[in-house]
């Protein structure tokens, strides 16, 4: 796949060096980040390194700041008035994404997102998937057709919808809609996919399908997934970060977090004693 220089901004021409670094190299470096919604601080001094082509899970009780941190990674929080990263840096391949010279539009093309509640556009399946490409000015029909098929196959949805690509995306079942959203995200070939509790609104069978999908996607993408579900984190992820009250309590290999947590709070949480 042809990876254009990401995070480049026309103003400065700065771009994140593209290296086909081996799985496990640091892709996103979150460095002592404080984050505020207006006057209320939601993240306290978070530092963690997200590795390339791995699945990193964020766990923790509700309201502990998992979504907030996730949305910092593609600057979705910019859309909310009064938010700011007050301290620290988030670097992707060494580039500070909050630097004024960074083009946020470009950033979001490289860092895709799947939301908690599936949100296909009220358009056809085909148009949903090609939306991001059309934004980039790509309109060649056979080109788009190819991407649609590839993305839907990538999201394990092709066989189910190939005969009704031009019907509304809202006509799919909940699980299918969520996979459509994943297909839509991967269609623009991002490097990172952020998933905010992608299965919380799905039934168990649809959940299994999405989890299987995540296992397939990990070979191509770096995935950060927020989840409420301990088993899911244990099954899907390589690394797990446990948050509590806006602080990162523990970050380690998933196996270590679940088998042998270093912190008593982590231990209490993963064993289901609170949260």
């Amino acid at each position, binding site marked *: 796949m042809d990876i254009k220089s990401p995070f480049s901004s026309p103003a400065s021409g700065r771009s994140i060096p593209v290296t086909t670094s081996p799985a496990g190299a640091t892709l996103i470096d979150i460095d002592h980040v404080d984050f505020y919604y207006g006057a209320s601080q939601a993240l306290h001094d978070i530092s963690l390194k997200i590795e390339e082509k791995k699945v990193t899970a964020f766990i923790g009780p509700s309201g502990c700041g998992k979504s907030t941190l996730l949305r910092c990674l593609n600057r979705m929080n910019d859309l909310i008035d009064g938010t700011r990263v007050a301290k620290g840096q988030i670097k992707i391949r060494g580039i500070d994404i909050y630097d004024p010279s960074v083009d946020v539009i470009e950033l*979001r093309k490289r860092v895709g997102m799947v*939301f908690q509640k599936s949100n296909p*556009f009220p358009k056809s399946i085909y148009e949903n998937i090609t939306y991001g490409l059309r934004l980039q000015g790509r309109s060649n029909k056979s080109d788009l057709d190819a991407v649609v098929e590839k993305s839907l196959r990538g999201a394990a949805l092709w066989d189910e919808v190939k005969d009704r690509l031009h019907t509304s995306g809202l006509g799919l079942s909940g699980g299918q809609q969520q996979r459509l959203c994943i297909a839509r995200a991967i269609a623009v070939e991002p490097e990172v996919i952020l998933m905010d509790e992608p299965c919380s609104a799905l039934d168990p069978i649809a959940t299994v399908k999405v989890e299987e999908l995540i296992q397939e996607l990990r070979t191509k993408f770096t995935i950060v997934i927020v989840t409420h579900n301990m088993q899911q984190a244990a099954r899907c992820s390589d690394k797990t970060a446990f948050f509590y009250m806006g602080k990162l309590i523990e970050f380690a290999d998933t196996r270590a977090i679940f088998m042998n947590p270093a912190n008593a709070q982590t231990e209490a949480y993963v064993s289901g004693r609170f949260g």
Partner: protein
Amino acid sequence: METPRPTSHSDFLVNKKRIRVLGLSLDDAIKIFFGGNAVLSVIVLALITYFLFQEGFGFFGQNHRNLLTYRQAGLEYVDFIRTQESGHIALTRYLSDLRLRQYNEYVATQKMLPSAANDALAKFDEFAVQYGDAVESIRGMVSDLTEQATAIKTKFLIAEDKKIERQQLLAAGKIEAAAAVKIETVDFAAELHVLKGILPLYKETNADFAKKLDAALMAAPKFTTPELSARFDRFKELTRDYLATFPSTTSSLETWDYTRPVPWYQAISAFLFGREWLTASFWQDWYGIVPLLMGSIMVSLVALVIAVPLGVGAAIYINQIASAREQRIVKPSIEFISAFPSVVLGFFGIAVLGQSLRWLSQQAWLAWVPGFPFSERLNILTAGCLLALIAVPTIFTLAEDALQNVPKAFKEASFALGATRLQTIIKIVVPASLSGIISAVLLGLGRVIGETMVVLLCAGNRIAIPDFTAGLAVVTQPVHTMTGIIAQEMGEVVRGSIHYRALFVVGIVLFFLSLGINFIAQKIVRKYRISIG
């Protein structure tokens, strides 16, 4: 909440004490109050509808009689010849226009003095006089016949009035007085015999008329430019076409028969497709809704052309782009516009808007705008601009609602895929709320088409179908509207007269128009609710 909890104590009271008035609890009273209001409004609505129809439907019978009288009293017969005469008038108007052009040519291009130009036109004038005078004998005939037919009609109408008088007396039990009322029955056959006796004379006069026109054309003047010559050729062609209609006029006169019945549907079609609304005329009243309908439509159209971009644009800006502070200021301001009484807007339209639009139209640097300059201060454009002001708050508020209803998740998804704000608005937000926006526009249209005061004051109130050959300049013409005519004429008409009832039917048409618009808007809104989920 009133189910008592199971309890071992039988004296455990959970029922609260209820106040009862006339055997009704408070709950019942509330239910009756609100239910009663609902029922009352339904009843009132039904009564209004019933009243509209009851007053209106008599119109068609009366209109049928109106048309029948038109035929029986021979007015129709006379109008055949009158139409011929007015055809000639149109041609002479064309001729005057031609003279003016030639005159301007002489003065402006050839730099002749006005007197010299007039001298040069002497031959043309001779021709024009000859051409114009040819119709004199026909014109004389028409005015004689008009008198005769009017006399027959008056006689007939008096007789009808007497009949009613007698019936009223009989109903009041005054039999003697009733017998004393003399009713002169009109013998149409005899009366019309005189009228129709004119036919041989007409044929003779007409042949003479045709000959004179032919002769005039032979002695046609010359023109100095090919353009004018072409125009004159066109004129000759028109005259020839005109002459070609003579035989059909004659045959209409020959075959005309006052006893031929007027089909019932003509009472309706003459209303729905009638191109003239002419009342209190000494000759014949016509109740054709087309000019009024056209007036209403044109004014509303202009209003929408202005109000839709403004209202929808403002809604998009306020909902999607503006800061919270701007929202706090702009939203109430736009909604405040609807607080103006429409009569105040009407004053504003007459005193300020119409005046300034006319002033603007007379500026030399704006002469390229179609229809500029115009002299009528009150016209479609003036009324349309003001109606736009009335429609903007409706469209803005409803469109803003529709935009507000677009789930935030769509926008987030779009941003997350790397869309800019503008792309998100154009590709996601507006399409997702499109049906809501369309219905906002339709409801704005409903608001505008029913508006009365502004159009009455500012549309110019000329009852005529706008001349669409003027192209875009059509908007500078004055019109009259359905609402305007009702407001203007309802106060002056005799209750129960055909004119009175005609106004009611106009009201019914308006009612159905609004109903239709609202219905479609509702349909669209419902569909949109389903599609967004």
